């Protein structure tokens, strides 16, 4: 398998993806990014330029990957499906988006679970992914409601998400050396710490 032969290249690409998302001048996850390449690619760009979505999917994939092959497979199917369902619901129902604090709480939970790596049933990561995927997808759907071709943009978001989750989960599952699994757990703790700071940022007085 290519992933086994060249893990560093895969890590390098993953690092580039995260860094591009961070350093890009985009900020507003609430609005769809205009890539100039059509609505599908607008959706792809939106996902990769939304750090909160990237980090949530990353921590869930770490958690699923650490729990083993079965858990990772279920998660890879469940998260994009739930996200797409949430997106569609966000497009057709005009109720307000879930508050950002709730979305960040999901990142804390997923990050903590990856860091602690508790022995839970293989279906648990997928179940959690369904709940959090619907919430984040709904927020994406509300953001896209004003665009002309929201379903195509939604498909772009979900395609990017599916690739990202598949990539991260596959890298995590195939890492067998103890230090590599520990590195995955350390990354989970970083995600939880980011979520914790971000939620406090949202709730700080005067915000």
């Amino acid at each position, binding site marked *: 398998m290519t992933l086994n032969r060249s893990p560093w290249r895969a890590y390098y690409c993953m690092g*580039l993806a995260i860094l591009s998302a961070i350093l890009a001048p985009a900020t507003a996850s609430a609005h769809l990014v205009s890539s100039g390449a059509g609505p599908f690619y607008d959706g792809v760009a939106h996902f990769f330029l939304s750090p909160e979505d990237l980090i949530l999917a990353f921590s869930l994939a770490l958690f699923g990957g650490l729990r083993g092959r079965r858990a990772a497979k279920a998660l890879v199917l469940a998260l994009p499906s739930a996200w797409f369902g949430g997106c569609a619901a966000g497009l057709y129902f005009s109720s307000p988006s879930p508050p950002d604090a709730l979305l960040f709480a999901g990142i804390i939970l997923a990050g903590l679970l990856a860091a602690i790596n508790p022995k839970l049933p293989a279906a648990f990561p997928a179940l959690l992914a369904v709940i959090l995927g619907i919430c984040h997808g709904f927020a994406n759907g509300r953001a896209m409601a004003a665009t002309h071709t929201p379903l195509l943009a939604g498909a772009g978001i979900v395609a990017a998400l599916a690739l990202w989750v598949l990539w991260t989960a596959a890298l995590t599952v195939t890492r067998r050396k103890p230090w590599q699994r520990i590195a995955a757990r350390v990354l989970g703790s970083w995600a939880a710490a980011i979520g914790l*700071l971000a939620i406090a940022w949202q709730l700080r007085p005067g915000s």
Partner: protein
Amino acid sequence: MSFHTLAPITPVLAHMGEGGGSFVSGLSHPIGGLDHMLAMVAVGLWGAQLGKPAIWVLPISFPLVMAFGGALGLLGVPLPGVEAGIALSAVVLGLMVLIEAEPPLAVALTVAGFFALFHGHAHGVELPEGQSGVLYSIGFVIATGLLHGAGIGIGVLHRWKAGRRGLRAAGGIVLLGGLYFLAQTCGLKV
């Protein structure tokens, strides 16, 4: 790589430059103060001296407790003696490295976690207005983790006899630095 090409093609948003600026601001914050840096690196050094499982439990738990402290700071929850706590953390952690202390894991975690609260709180209070909270947090956590990683990397020297002496000497330097900052905090002229 497509990610490279995706990043620059989004000039349409109102807050140009804010994303990168917040991330870099968060990244530079933990390495901006020598007192913070000394303590972060000392955590890694101590973890390396303690070996498994502390070498990985400390770097997992420290950012979490530090983020909790940061959250308290952001929310305006007061924590007394923050500056003294930060200086004292360098003193205590430096001392632990200097004497190559090997307490039970729970004690090591409690010591490191206690001081992590002060470091996090200081960063939370000092967090600049007008930044993107998520990107700032990402930079902040990555910088903290990399400082621990640097400490752990230097801690590889622990495998060799001369390296062990070198690590203890590094602990002594952290201790002296901590004492200097503690004296400054107490208003003493050094």
